[in-house]
């Protein structure tokens, strides 16, 4: 491009370009952080603002009469979700090594744990709706609760769907070492869904339950 | 390389930019000087008649002055740059066709135009912050007249709680109490959506938000009628949600209060009109104290004739207008929340004859 002899020019600088797949996913997660951040902020803002029951205490606190203390049941579910984050790491490692069978195994474990979590949420909602009569329109607590937990569940569902597809591909023998990068991106997304849950859990079942006495 | 633009461009540009400078100044002079013959009914913030509005105007002058100086200086620099550094001109003097010297920046200069604006902003901030705390009163000043203002779609309710009556469309306040300037403390609430109470000559605006109580403080300096209107979009008739404030001499105000406190005037001559009113759906929405009509959805009509306007100000309160209103309010105020009551002409006349006795 330039007429100058090469030795006169400074050497070309390194651009410092980043890997685009990773950055893309990080940005997606960043935007999700702001999405969930908004829902969470609204949830916190509205703690204790509902008029009329059932309150968080009413539905989460079924001390002796009810079958379970809801937060306990939810904690139980949560363990599955948290653990699945571990499995997905192992799955990724396996794929990096090219151990596709091991990958398939851990992948299935991840998928299964995620599914258990989702089933737990479904069960919880069933109880809330059928036994406690709590739905979106019942009161402000219901609106906030179903929106926040629902959007999280939606993200879990999206993750599980993609996992199912990947699993089918694995069974078909289409997953190879070179896909490890993509799997890593997927695992980031999954960790994020997990992290959101930790916050949601704290807000809804700990702070919200206390704060709304 | 392409042709260099013609010279007249810069002259015209200069003229226009200069006009951009001068026009605001002229307009400002025209608008801001209350002695100039503008409409007497103009609710201009430059013509304040109440303490908070005056305080706001003082701050306004300062910020206008600061911004005007910045504006003129910057605009001047732009114009100067265009004239002085037009390509043709520069080449004439420099006598070559090459590129001008490239200047990549200058730390001291750039520091200067970071720090100087910071200082300006700091001054502006201090002055305005003081103003905020002085003007925004959350507690009624001692001895203030308190009125609860409720915004409805699309009319204002004025509830004089302690004095025991409520009225609509016109807010009446006294200039003095026992010869001393009287503060008025408005408590603002909404019955439906967000409105905003704004009478520029008396004070700044304050939003009227459902589920929330806001306060506004006025302290009139002069008697007279001051207009304003709802300033937050609230639906079809937002434009028709006008405000009238009447500032009275102390005695007149007391007389007005005494009259408002009475129940509705009862004139046997128009009793049939009253009975018709009371047997119509009117009473579901309107209150007339001293009768069974006690609706709260719509303006209190007990002393309708003491108001000079109808429909919160969209029309003057004359017999013809009143008839037209009761016949079909949608004509004067399309979209408003009072339906045409489908009365016959005769019934309308009878009801209005009675309404006209409600002094």
């Amino acid at each position, binding site marked *: 491009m330039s007429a100058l002899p090469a030795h006169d020019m400074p050497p070309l600088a390194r651009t410092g370009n980043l890997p685009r797949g990773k950055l893309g996913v990080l940005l997606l997660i960043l935007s999700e952080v702001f999405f969930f951040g908004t829902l969470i902020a609204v949830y916190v803002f509205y703690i204790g603002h509902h008029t009329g029951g059932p309150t968080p205490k009413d539905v989460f606190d079924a001390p002796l009469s009810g079958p379970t203390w809801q937060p306990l049941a939810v904690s139980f579910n949560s363990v599955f979700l948290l653990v699945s984050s571990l499995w997905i790491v192992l799955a990724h490692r396996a794929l990096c090594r090219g151990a596709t069978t091991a990958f398939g195994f851990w992948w299935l474990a991840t998928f299964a744990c995620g599914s258990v979590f989702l089933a737990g949420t479904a069960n919880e909602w069933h109880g809330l709706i059928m036994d406690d009569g709590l739905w979106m329109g019942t009161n402000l607590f219901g609106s906030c609760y179903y929106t926040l937990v629902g959007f999280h569940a939606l993200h879990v569902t999206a993750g599980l769907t993609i996992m199912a597809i990947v699993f089918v591909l694995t069974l078909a023998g289409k997953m190879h070492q070179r896909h490890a990068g993509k799997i890593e991106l997927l695992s980031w997304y999954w960790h994020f869904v997990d992290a959101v849950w930790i916050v949601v859990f704290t807000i809804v079942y700990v702070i919200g339950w206390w704060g709304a006495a | 390389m392409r042709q260099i633009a013609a010279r007249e461009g810069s002259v015209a540009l200069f003229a226009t930019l200069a006009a951009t400078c001068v026009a605001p100044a002229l307009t400002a002079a025209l*608008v801001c000087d209350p002695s100039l013959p503008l409409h007497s009914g*103009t*609710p201009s*913030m430059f013509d304040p008649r109440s303490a908070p509005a005056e305080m706001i105007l003082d701050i306004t002058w300062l910020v206008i002055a600061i911004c005007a100086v910045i504006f003129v200086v910057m605009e001047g620099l*732009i114009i100067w740059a265009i004239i002085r550094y037009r390509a043709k001109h520069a080449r004439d003097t420099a006598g070559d066709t090459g590129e001008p010297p490239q200047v990549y920046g200058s730390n001291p200069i750039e520091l200067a135009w970071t720090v100087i604006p910071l200082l300006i902003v700091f001054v*502006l901030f201090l002055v305005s912050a003081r103003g905020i705390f002085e003007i925004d009163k959350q507690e009624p000043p001692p001895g203030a007249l308190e009125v609860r203002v409720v915004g409805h779609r699309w009319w204002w309710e004025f509830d004089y709680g302690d004095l025991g009556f409520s009225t609509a469309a016109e807010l009446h306040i006294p200039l003095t109490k026992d010869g001393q300037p009287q503060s008025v403390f408005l408590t603002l609430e909404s019955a439906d959506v967000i409105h905003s109470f*704004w009478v520029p000559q008396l004070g700044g605006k304050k939003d009227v938000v459902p589920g929330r109580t806001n306060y506004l403080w006025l302290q009139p300096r002069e008697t007279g009628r001051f207009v304003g209107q709802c300033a937050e979009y609230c639906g079809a008739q937002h434009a028709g949600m006008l405000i009238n404030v009447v500032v009275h001499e102390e005695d007149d105000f007391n007389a007005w209060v005494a009259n408002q406190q009475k129940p509705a005037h009862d004139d046997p001559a128009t009793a049939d009109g009253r009975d018709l009113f009371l047997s119509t759906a009117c009473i579901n929405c309107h209150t007339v104290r001293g009768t069974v009509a006690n609706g709260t959805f719509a303006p209190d009509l007990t002393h309708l004739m003491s108001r000079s306007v109808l429909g919160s100000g969209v029309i003057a309160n004359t017999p013809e207008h009143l008839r037209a209103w009761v016949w079909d309010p949608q004509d004067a105020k399309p979209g408003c929340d009072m339906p045409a009551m489908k009365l016959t002409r005769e019934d309308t006349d009878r009801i209005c004859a009675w309404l006209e006795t409600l002094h």
Partner: protein
Amino acid sequence: MSSSPVRPDLSPPLSRLHEWVVTVDHKRLGVMYIVTGLVFFLIGGFEAAMMRWQLAWPGLDIVMPEDFNRLFTMHGTTMVFLVGMPILLGSANYLVPLMIGTRDMAFPRLNAFGFWLFFFGGALLYFSYFGAQGLYGMGSAPDVGWFAYAPLTERTFSRGHSTDYWILGLMVSGFGSIATGINLVTTILCMRCTGMRLMKMPLFVWIMLVDAILIVVAMPPLAAAQVMLLFDRSLGAHFFDVQAGGSAVLWQNLFWFFGHPEVYILILPAFAFVSEIIPVFSRKVLFGYPLMVAATVTIGFISMGVWVHHMFAIGLSPAVNTLFMASTMLIGVPTGIKMFNWVATMFGGRIRLHTPMLFSIGFLAQFLFGGLTGVMLAVVPFDWQVSDSYFVVGHFHYVLFGGLIFSIFAAIYYWFPKVSGRMLSEALGKWQFWLLLIGFNLTFGPMHVSGMLGMPRRIYTYQLDRGWEIWNLLSSIGVLFQALAIAFFIWNVIRSLQRGTPAGDDPWDAWTLEWSTTSPPPAWNFDTDPEVRSRRPLWDAKHPDDPDWKYE
């Protein structure tokens, strides 16, 4: 990414249409964004013209009150979301890959997806004119204002489906914007050509980077708020239902938390355009590049923390108002730095007043005015008088029209030769500029006056005795000039596409990489991968004796 597949089996017009519809080429998508945006500009301008006609004199009956309310809602929504956004995304799309010397965006398919989401979002919004009647037979287009304050948007007060169209239309196009925002950031951070370190990027690219990050973080909160509103309306939730403990102020916080960054999202591209144009037509390097970068980043940060200045009259505590007054005023400082640096670039230059430069100067002069009225509005006591009055309408048209739209025209006149291979006519361009300059100031200058004289915004008519007639009449007359100017523009584009002077690669003797390839650029952009050593690679090439890299 390869250029669009050609379908020889289709008839020529269909085949060309097919090429455009299935394209993933950043340049075509850029053009599609911009053209769609300009079409919406005509529609939004038409709506504005109807409003000005109605307001020309008190008591007119040109449109019904409800229709007026729809007009300003659709006008504001269109101009912000369907004009400003697509044009900025489109120009970034077209220019960023060229300026950083790469072949395409990081994710070309995502790029096409983003465009089509935007397109369908806009179409959905406008479909409300026909489809929003709903079961109640009420309403047509949304009539809740562009910021859709609750509880006016709740079912109780807004029946029918118009508000749902507002929500869904904007949400769909919003997801498109987020996708494109992610794409832009990734492209800029991952695809720069050899030698282009961050501080060697043209300022345009820097500004677009900050802009795209703002899009990525500011749009999701709006989507979340809209989801809540949607749930309120369709599932009976109570987020903004005051009767059930919901809060009207919450919506305002959520909306403006998005809304203020949004106005900066709109103005930053304007800064980007003039930061390229002013140096080229002053024949000088941009003054103070590093500080410009710093100012851009600072603006990005501060703009996330000023949103309460739209709520000064809502009755928040004096302390909160004071705090946000401070942050709002502070944002004038980095913006001022930019103004000063642009003017300093002109100083000592050899200014050529071609149309792009004229529009850029118009931008400088008018954005200055709008910015200063913005600082006035930041003064809380003053805002208590003029908030929600025509003064505010004046303010934001000076920044949005006088700033953004003027700079868009500057950009169109500047880059049209690159995109089409032909020059726009200078003569017609000057006609457009002067008519628009006069019309614009005539329309929006008087609004400041009527606002300070007590005229609230969003009123479909006003009383005769208020003394606002003359100012409104002037405003309305101004629109005629503007419409004429726009007509000149359309004529210019059509004429030049057919028989404009061929542009050549580098008609303005400019310095950034896009001018080193052909006009229009080939699908692959550059025949050889560019290498840069400075911010002005073409300057280096043209002045090997005195290249930039010696000084940067």
